[in-house]
């Protein structure tokens, strides 16, 4: 029993990372109907920037802040420089998804060029090995920090989307773009903000994932696929769904890996998702935008 609890806890910690990635993906999907495949590479670039600054002797929190701003800036620039012109050219949803793939490839190549492909250890203030015992389970400082960061990120996102004028504008834009434009909402700015916020979330997830793994240009890819899966599991246009999907996926993976098969834990997670999708094609909490004939 305590073992099961332990696996659940480590699953929750991994799942909160997936949830952060999924939140960013859902934020972008809700506003622009684009599945962002550059999410991992945005996070990677941000994490590497933080890495370089810490190496140069900067304090951790300053480096984290700069990395977040840099990641958000790349996403906003991409939105204005690539997505908007492509939309003017009449690119459909598929075309826009492919644009993000293009961005992913470019960032990937530049990361390899700038920082090399060899893995590095990421210096992180929270330790992976310092462990506390809470009742029957053990929890490390790092996984506690990850859980806290994800909770904080979800809370901030919730407050922004539900309690501010900007959030109201975001919800209106995602509900009906033309109507929002007619009502005088600066939709371009709102969408750019969504991209920036999503990239910022991705960078936070990247910085918290880097100390678990080693830092190399491809370290976020697996997390991206899990994040995508989590977002789809929860419903691609539901922010609470993203958190639920991420946590569920993390726990399913950890428990499945422990009790069923360690080699196939990723496959198990995907099988679970396909099964859920077959019953609920729009995810657990999702409500897909209805299409008019």
């Amino acid at each position, binding site marked *: 029993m305590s073992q099961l609890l332990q696996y659940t806890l480590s699953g929750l910690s991994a799942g909160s990372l997936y949830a952060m990635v999924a939140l960013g993906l859902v934020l972008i999907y809700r506003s622009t109907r684009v599945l962002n495949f550059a999410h991992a590479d945005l996070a990677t670039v941000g994490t590497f920037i933080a890495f370089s600054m810490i190496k140069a002797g900067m304090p951790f929190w300053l480096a984290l802040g700069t990395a977040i701003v840099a990641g958000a800036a790349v996403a906003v620039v991409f939105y204005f420089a690539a997505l908007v012109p492509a939309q003017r050219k009449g690119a459909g949803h598929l075309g826009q998804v492919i644009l993000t*793939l293009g961005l992913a490839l470019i960032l990937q190549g530049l990361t390899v060029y700038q920082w090399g492909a060899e893995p590095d250890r990421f210096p992180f203030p929270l330790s992976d090995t310092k462990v506390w015992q809470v009742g029957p389970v053990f929890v490390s400082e790092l996984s506690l920090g990850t859980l806290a960061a994800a909770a904080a990120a979800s809370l901030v996102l919730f407050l922004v989307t539900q309690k501010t004028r900007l959030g109201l504008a975001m919800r209106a834009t995602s509900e009906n773009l033309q109507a929002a434009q007619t009502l005088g909402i600066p939709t371009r700015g709102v969408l750019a903000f969504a991209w920036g916020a999503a990239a910022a979330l991705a960078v936070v997830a990247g910085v918290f994932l880097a100390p678990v793994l080693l830092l190399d240009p491809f370290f976020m890819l697996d997390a991206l696929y899990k994040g995508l899966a989590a977002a789809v599991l929860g419903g691609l246009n539901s922010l609470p769904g993203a958190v639920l999907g991420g946590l569920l996926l993390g726990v399913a993976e950890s428990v499945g890996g422990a009790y069923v098969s360690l080699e196939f834990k990723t496959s198990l997670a995907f099988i679970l998702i396909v099964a859920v999708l077959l019953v609920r094609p729009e995810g657990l909490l999702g409500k897909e935008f209805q299409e008019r004939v």
Partner: protein
Amino acid sequence: MDLVETYGEELRFARKPLARTLLILLLVALALLPWWGPRGWLTRASLVWLFAVGVIGQNLLIGYAGQISFGQAGFLAVGAYTFGHLRIAGIPFPLALAGAGAAAGLAGWLVGFPSLRLKGPYLAIATLGFGTATYQIFANVEWLSGGRAGLAIPALQPPFGLVRDTWVYLLYYAIFLLFTGTAYNLVSSYLGRALVAVRDSDIAAESMGVSLSRTKLLAFAISSFYTGVSGALMAQYLGHLEPQAFNISESMNFFVAVIVGGLASVEGSIFGAAFVVLVPALLGGFRWAVPVLFGSAILSVLILEPLGLAGLWLKTRLYFRLWPFR
């Protein structure tokens, strides 16, 4: 006067006698490449042909039927490993090739079932799951993948005293021509029109009497048949199989080829295949520049020329048809 009267005529690649002569000359010149081209080109060109088969398959699915699949590397792996095991069991090359295609086609048919309920991004994730699962299965099940040593595939024995490279090139070229011709026919048949109808509006297509489930499943099956054959050819080309060859970045290569070549265009797929094979070869030492170039190509295609290289080719032809008047 250039009057196009039927849809079939509109789709025909070369309509006028001049264009047809030029096309035949080009095809013959390519067939004779081993006798006039440098050695280094030969293996590279074989790679283009085998890629082109897979890209055409992917384009049938994405470009014509409008179904996203990120599991292409999975079908590639199914084809390659089926082919490898059949060849090792002593089955002759053509039969093994057909078996590889059939196995991948069956896998595609099965993967197609979620597509009956899922759309767009949801389908993309489901197929991504298939790709990941296939990769993990081949990476972890030793009797399938040949364990740590990988799977060695017996080399082809060239007949008529040909050099092996030449024989491989000619064989691949012939297979490529066969599959390209089939694709052209398919696209201009009832099924091709049904695929396009499903892509443009599935509800309208269904109300016009196109069977959605049949069309979607067929699209998946045919596309993965092509991909499986491409995987088998790749297996024969490499001579040695490891699961690492079929990770997600291989799916991305096919994707880039389809987009850069041009969605819903068979000749575009060939251009795209040539692009993803030849550009890395040209860049040689600058490996990091390959993804940057691929990414920039995707961005510029979608922003400047949404029809890709095929669109560029169409515009060039149009320009010269009217030349010197415009």
